[in-house]
């Protein structure tokens, strides 16, 4: 008995929804329905829990009761079905089953429909009779059943990983260099604008274009001094650059001195001034990277990044 219940659910005959439902028929047998259930749908109490677990809620249980008796949803004798449903619920409550709230809610609703069917239907304010109290139940049963069937149909579709498999073959090991991201100058400037705004540098500094050239010159001079040793002060100036160029170089040297990055040395008065980098040589991988850069064909013939100014 216990195992026939889910069996019956699974083999419930499909409704011929496209057949014009002849509504005059009281109960139509549609398809072959194998059910061993007696008319009163008696189920032994020890099977009730199993029975209830096979249902997806009160609508599913109601549908089962209807289908088990070969009834059309549209023709259901609501009083009878309600009676059966309430009997189940009563038995289950008597046996202290932990009934989900949905089942009790449905029981209350069915009870309400049943009692309203016994009374004359009241007319609404517009003089039209209220709709049959069964109509909403039928609508919900129909609506649920169509999705229950849709779910069965989806389950019947071939499913990847269960019924069929995607075909794959070993791919050759071929690596392609990844293109680094491209950045536009505008993005860089926007980033700078942000950081400057955050640092609130607008108010406290007024950095001119000349200062920038000076910064560039500072890097250039540091490059020239790379490798250590003393360099003649005058060698850091390029006369061809004119007055402005010389001034920029001079300011760059002063700034480097101020930042403690270079030393100016004069052994005696009026002797030549020599310059030495106080910064240590970059060593290790970092330097390798920098030199790798210098060896690039694009950078051929230049000793540093900014020496062609």
């Amino acid at each position: 008995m216990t195992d026939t219940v889910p069996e019956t659910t699974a083999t419930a005959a499909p409704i011929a929804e496209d057949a014009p439902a002849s509504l005059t028929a009281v109960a139509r047998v549609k398809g072959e329905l194998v059910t061993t259930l007696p008319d009163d749908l008696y189920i032994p109490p020890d099977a009730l829990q199993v029975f209830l677990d096979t249902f997806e809620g009160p609508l599913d249980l109601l549908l089962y009761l209807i289908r088990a008796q070969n009834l059309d949803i549209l023709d259901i004798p609501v009083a009878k079905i309600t009676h059966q449903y309430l009997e189940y619920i009563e038995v289950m409550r008597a046996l202290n089953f932990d009934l989900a709230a949905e089942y009790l809610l449905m029981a209350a609703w069915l009870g309400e429909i049943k009692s309203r069917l016994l009374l004359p239907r009241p007319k609404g304010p517009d003089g039209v009779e209220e709709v049959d109290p069964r109509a909403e139940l039928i609508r919900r049963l129909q609506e649920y059943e169509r999705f229950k069937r849709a779910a069965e149909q989806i389950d019947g579709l071939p499913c990847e990983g269960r019924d069929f498999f995607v075909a794959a073959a070993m791919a050759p090991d071929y690596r392609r260099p990844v293109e680094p991201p491209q950045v536009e100058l505008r993005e860089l400037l926007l980033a700078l604008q942000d950081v400057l705004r955050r640092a609130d540098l607008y108010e406290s500094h007024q950095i001119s274009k000349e200062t920038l050239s000076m910064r560039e010159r500072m890097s250039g001079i540091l490059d020239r001094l790379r490798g250590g040793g003393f360099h003649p002060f005058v060698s850091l100036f390029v006369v061809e650059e004119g007055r402005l160029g010389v001034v920029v170089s001079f300011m760059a040297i002063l700034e480097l001195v101020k930042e403690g990055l270079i030393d100016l040395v004069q052994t005696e008065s009026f002797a030549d001034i020599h310059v030495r980098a106080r910064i240590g040589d970059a060593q290790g991988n970092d330097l390798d990277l920098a030199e790798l850069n210098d060896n690039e064909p694009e950078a051929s013939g230049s000793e540093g990044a900014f020496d062609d100014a």
Partner: protein
Amino acid sequence: MTPDELKAIVEGALFAAGRALSIEQLQALFEEGRAPDAGSLKAILAALADDYAGRGVQLQQVASGWRFQVRSDVGPWVSRLWEERPQRYSRALLETLALIAYRQPITRSEIEDIRGVSVSSQIVKTLLEREWIRVAGHKEVPGRPALFATTRSFLDDFNLQSLADLPALASIRDLDEIAADLDRKQ
């Protein structure tokens, strides 16, 4: 490039990908300006489908493009490759999935209204993890509940090209019609 070379590239890419590739993805295999046009690619795909007719794998068009897949009638043998037998999904999960597929976008409480029972969080989580459903947005009602919709993966995994390929939903009569019928019979 000869047509045969072109076909070998498309064939190799589809097998190497192990998933469906769209026309655009196939075109992206080639250098800029050297990709075959959509028409040529479709002709190649049709030729490939012919080549594989009757073989153990076949070329299948799904929502996200074309892919090679193992013929479903050899599935029972092939599935033995994996220790874990593919599980069947619970009715609760399938009904929830069906409601999302046919009624999308839909909220959880709308699903619960139709099913008449609450939808467990575990089911929603499983469907999201399987990438069969996604949160398509939020309904502008109190609580802003998530609106669920199906994904392209859902279509792919069920061999569908679009939602229109889903089995038709059974038709139902609306409330007024039902009420009228009930009245007539009394």
